[in-house]
Each structure stands twice: as structure tokens, then as C-alpha cells.
């Protein structure tokens, strides 16, 4: 139980062990543990970020869906309006065309009427002339009555 040199041997040993532990044992173990801690932290952070991103994406997707719905409704409304317009336009065009055609036909008809009438007039006057000629050939000198007959045919027209 006496105190002797053993104490110093023990002291030196203790110092050496502590030094070795500090230099070669402690750092790699603690470093690996720190690294794992960091990894876990990062993983948790990434998970958190992923979740928030997903939520954001969902919101965005919902927004986009709503937008496209609105757009589709707009498009449909526009198309309907346009179709109505087109129908109206077509009606207008058709009516206009029809009236034009009718006017043309009427003009043609009038012209034809006038022409026919003129022809008929001429034919009637010719006929009258022939009849008169035939009648007068016997009784009237054609040369004498020519002037009177011409005046007559002119008043008929």
C-alpha cells in the first residue's frame, strides 16, 4: 500500500492513453457520427421540402385546371356567338342575294315585257299595214295614204 514510482508510471500511462485517444480514436468516431447526423438532417429537410413542393404543385395544378375550365367556357361561348353571327350573316347575305336576284329578274321581266310589247306593236302594225294594204290596195293609192298610216303607227307605240 506504499506510494512509490508506480504512481508516476501510471500517470505517464494515463497521459499517453489520453493523448492517443484524443489523436486517433475520438476524431474518426465523432466525425462519422456527425456526418450521419448531418445526413439525417438533410434527409428530413429534403422530405419537408418535397412535401411543400408537392403541395405547391397541387395548388398550381388546381389553378391551371380552373384556368383551363374558364378558358374552355370562354371558347365555347365565343364559338356559339360566332356561330350565331355566322348564321345571321349568312341569312343577311342570302336575303340580300335573293332580293338582288329578284330585282334582276324583275328588271329582266320588265325589259322582256317592253321588248315583247314593242315586237307585238310592230307585228300588230305590220298586220294592220298588211290588212290595210290589202284593203287599200284596191281602193286607196298607197302613195297618197302612206303619210297618214305612218302617223298612225307612231301613235300606237
Amino acid at each position, binding site marked *: 500500500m506504499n*506510494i512509490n514510482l*508506480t504512481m508516476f508510471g501510471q500517470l505517464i*500511462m494515463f497521459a499517453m*492513453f489520453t493523448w492517443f485517444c484524443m489523436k486517433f480514436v475520438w476524431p474518426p468516431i465523432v466525425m462519422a457520427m456527425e456526418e450521419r447526423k448531418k445526413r439525417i438532417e438533410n434527409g428530413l429537410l429534403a422530405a419537408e421540402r418535397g412535401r411543400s413542393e408537392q403541395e405547391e404543385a397541387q395548388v398550381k395544378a388546381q389553378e391551371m385546371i380552373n384556368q383551363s375550365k374558364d378558358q374552355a367556357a370562354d371558347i365555347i361561348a365565343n364559338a356559339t356567338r360566332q356561330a350565331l353571327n355566322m348564321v345571321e350573316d349568312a341569312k343577311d347575305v342570302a336575303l340580300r342575294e335573293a332580293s338582288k336576284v329578284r330585282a334582276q329578274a324583275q328588271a329582266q321581266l320588265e325589259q322582256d315585257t317592253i321588248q315583247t310589247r314593242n315586237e307585238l306593236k310592230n307585228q300588230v302594225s305590220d298586220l294592220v299595214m298588211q290588212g290595210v294594204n290589202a284593203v287599200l290596195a284596191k281602193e286607196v293609192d298607197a302613195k297618197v295614204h302612206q303619210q297618214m298610216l305612218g302617223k298612225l303607227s307612231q301613235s300606237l307605240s
Partner: protein
Amino acid sequence: MSVTNEIITSGSYIKHHLQNLTYGQFPDGHWGLAHTISEAKEMGFWAFHLDTLSVSFVLGVLFLIFFYRVGKKMTADTPSGAQNFIESVIDFINENVRGSFNDQNPVVAPLALTTFIWIVLMNTMDLVPVDWLPYVAQKIGVWFGADPHHVFFKAVPTTDPNATFGMSIGIFILIIYYSIKEKGADGFAAELTFHPFGKMMLPFNLFLEGVNLIAKPVSLALRLFGNMYAGEMIFILIALLPFWVQWSLSLPWAIFHILIVLLQAFIFMTLVVVYMDMAHQKER
């Protein structure tokens, strides 16, 4: 014990078990192994306890090799086996250091680890049945031509005050070193002289604080030594009983002793950390 021609009294048995294997300087000047207890006593200060030194050295090296090899293979991925064990030990130490040490010093945590594991291992030698290692040592001694009754072997280093004082003096040196380093020589001197009663009571303060300072290593060493010595003593006393009743006492005592082994190492480690913290505190 397997000694033939001498009658063994229980007194001599106990004494024999409590004697270290001593190598030192005889009064006439030459160095050698002490053959008897009185010879060992005569050597006085100039002697080594070979058993204490060798057992603690082997245990310390085992601890460092084990931790070093596992530490080299450490991965940050899923740990397994030995790494798990070591990480739990490191976590335990780290938690204690973080709890009681409020400064930054890369020495303290490894110091606490070394202290804790080394003391646990040395204390654990107490759980080896008291006669085994001395018996083996005796056989080896006889093989080298020694008288079997002159081969002493005290297997538990922490039952040798030299071991515990060696460690606590190391701690004492660190306390003084860090006190001076952190507070400056004047700051440390002021701490020793101006507290707790102010400048007028300087000698009294110095006496109080000096006792306080010296008490740290002394109490560290004596607490550990006393506990382990008493435990060892009881194991030796139990070993004196007839062999067929020994187990009924040694088993419960060994189970209880596991607690003491860990508890004493833990107390030592915690106090080391606390003392280091006190050495770093600038204002008290």
C-alpha cells in the same frame, strides 16, 4: 492456494493477496523483485508495482486498440455490432461532457472517455475470482524458478493507490494548466486568494482555496481506491470460507459489485469533467 509445506493462516492469506508484485531498490542499493512483504516495504519509494502497471497497461491498450479499430471502420451509414456499442458509449460520454462542461476544449471529451473506459476495465478485474490471476502468476513465477510463496499478484489496479493517485495527479496537473491558461496566472492567483472573503482575509482565503484545490485529486483518488479496495477485501474474505458456501456470498456480492464498478468509473469521469469545467470558468 496451492502452497504445500507452509501452514496458511487466514491472516497470511489476506496479506499475501494484498501485496503487490514489487520491483525496486533494496536498501543495499541493488534492484530486484521483493520476495517478502517486509522486503517490499523496505524498498520504500523507489519501487514499481509490476502487477498494477502491467494489468493497467494491457487493459488500456486493449481499450484503445478496440476503439481504434472500430473507429477506423466507422461509417456514417447504418451502424452495426461493435460500432453501435462504441457509438452508444461515445454518446453517453458526450452527453455528460455537454451537460457539465460549458467551454470549448477538444481534450475534455476524449479525456473523459479514456478515464471512464479505463477505470471500468480496471475495476472489472475485481470480478475475476480472487485466486485465478494470482494462481496463474504463481505458476509462471514457479516456471521461472521462483518460490511460489514469494510471487505476489494483485490483479485489480484500482485497489492500488498508486494507480488512482497517478490518474488524479494527471487530472490535478490539467486543472492547474487550464486554470492558468484560461484565467491567466494572475486570474488564477486572484481566484485562490480573493475568495470567498475579499482581500482583507487573504491568508485565510488562500488556506481555504488551497485545501479546496488539493482536495480535488486526493478525494478523486481515495474515493476510487477505497471503494475498490473494500470490494476486493470482501471478495478475499469470502474466499476464506469453505468452497461450497462461497458462491452464496460471492455471487450476490459480484452482482452488486458490477454496479460499483460502473458507478465509481462514472463518478470519477463526471468529477473530471466538472473539475475541468471549474478550471475553465473565468468568473465565479
